[in-house]
């Protein structure tokens, strides 16, 4: 990732293989969060300055503990929430998604890059499961997400016309 070294906290038994294949440098199992923080601090020699949490406030708080408190500012990005208290020298970030749709220059740069990545097959895209019933099946599909029974893949809802559409030409 642009010469960054990545240390990923995940369910290693389940996702370790695919994340290693994807190029993660270090994997840490998520089962013991305090131990995960200790491992991150040890491996990075206390020099971690960037952290991204995709889960929620509690795990973002754990990442905050692992960030460096000295020198340059450290940066914590939370996709699912951020800890209430800011640690010294740590800046909190939420993704300013509005810039994607409000500012054409930003959106266009991301979409043309995405096209290039897909063409060059440089993007690891998620596994998907197709649901049935089109729009009408979305309630049931969302129930499965709600119950947490879907892991490691995304649900995609083909609308009922999709086969017809694909035969137009």
């Amino acid at each position, binding site marked *: 990732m642009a010469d960054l070294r990545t240390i990923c906290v995940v369910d290693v038994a389940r996702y370790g293989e695919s994340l290693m294949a994807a190029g993660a440098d270090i994997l840490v199992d998520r089962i013991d969060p305090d131990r995960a923080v200790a491992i991150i601090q040890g491996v990075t020699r206390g020099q971690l300055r960037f952290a991204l949490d995709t889960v929620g406030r509690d795990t973002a708080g754990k990442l905050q503990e692992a960030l460096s408190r000295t020198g340059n500012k450290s940066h914590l990005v939370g996709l699912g929430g951020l800890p209430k208290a800011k640690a010294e020298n740590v*800046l909190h970030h939420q993704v300013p998604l509005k810039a994607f749709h409000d500012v054409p220059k930003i959106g266009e740069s991301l979409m043309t890059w995405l096209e290039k990545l897909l063409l060059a097959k440089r993007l690891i895209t998620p596994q998907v499961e197709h649901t049935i019933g089109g729009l009408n099946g979305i309630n049931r599909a969302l129930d499965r997400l709600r119950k947490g029974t879907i892991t490691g893949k995304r649900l995609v809802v083909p609308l009922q016309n999709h086969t017809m559409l694909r035969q137009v030409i």
Partner: protein
Amino acid sequence: MEVLTDEESRQLMESMTNPFTRLAHNEKETAGLLNSSQQVLLIHRPGEEYKLTQNQGIPEQKAEHEILVKVIAVGLNPVDWKGPDYNFGLPALPWINGRDLAGVVVKAHKNLRRIRVGDVVLSPSTDYRDIRKAAFQEYVVSTEHNSARVPADFDVLSSAAVGVAFVTAAMALGICCGLNFAVAKEPRGAPDLFRLAREVDPQAFAADIRDEVLDGVKESERPKPGDWIAIWGGEISPSEPCYG
């Protein structure tokens, strides 16, 4: 011997060189894909199920850069159930949700440079305040700058699960952390979002994100080769090229 017209030979040449999926060549061909009404999924109250509703209007384009997309597939995100359950992301009621979609462009202004009628696109719908752009309906308004064409060798249905995760990851790293993607050698042409954002009129950014975009990370603090980043979770949305 059958001779191709100029238009037919142009289309043939294009189909041989265009690496993206196209389902039609022009508006005449997409006319058959247009209806006078559509069905949508409406949420009437937080905590309730979505209700399939017939005979709704087709969303209208209001600007040259807006396109009309006939939805082929919708990608589901956790926010699609969390929003209704915890009562957020609902600017009015009833409302339409849905943030990820792939579809075929059925209307587009001729002046657009990249997207044309007939293109199959994936369109991350981050603008949840604009009901025309929500994915849980048969026709969606998107914009050229929020749509990516789907390569011919990439599964269209799978492309519906790519957009929001990609945009979120790219902006988290490129804007919040200041990571420069432009140093990547393959493919060339990746953006340096940090630099790009500073070339834009600051007023273009909404007041509540301006500081994050323009002052979140300082030039001197941007990641350098060999720096570490720790990532917690994200097993199902590694659609960022970060590991590429």
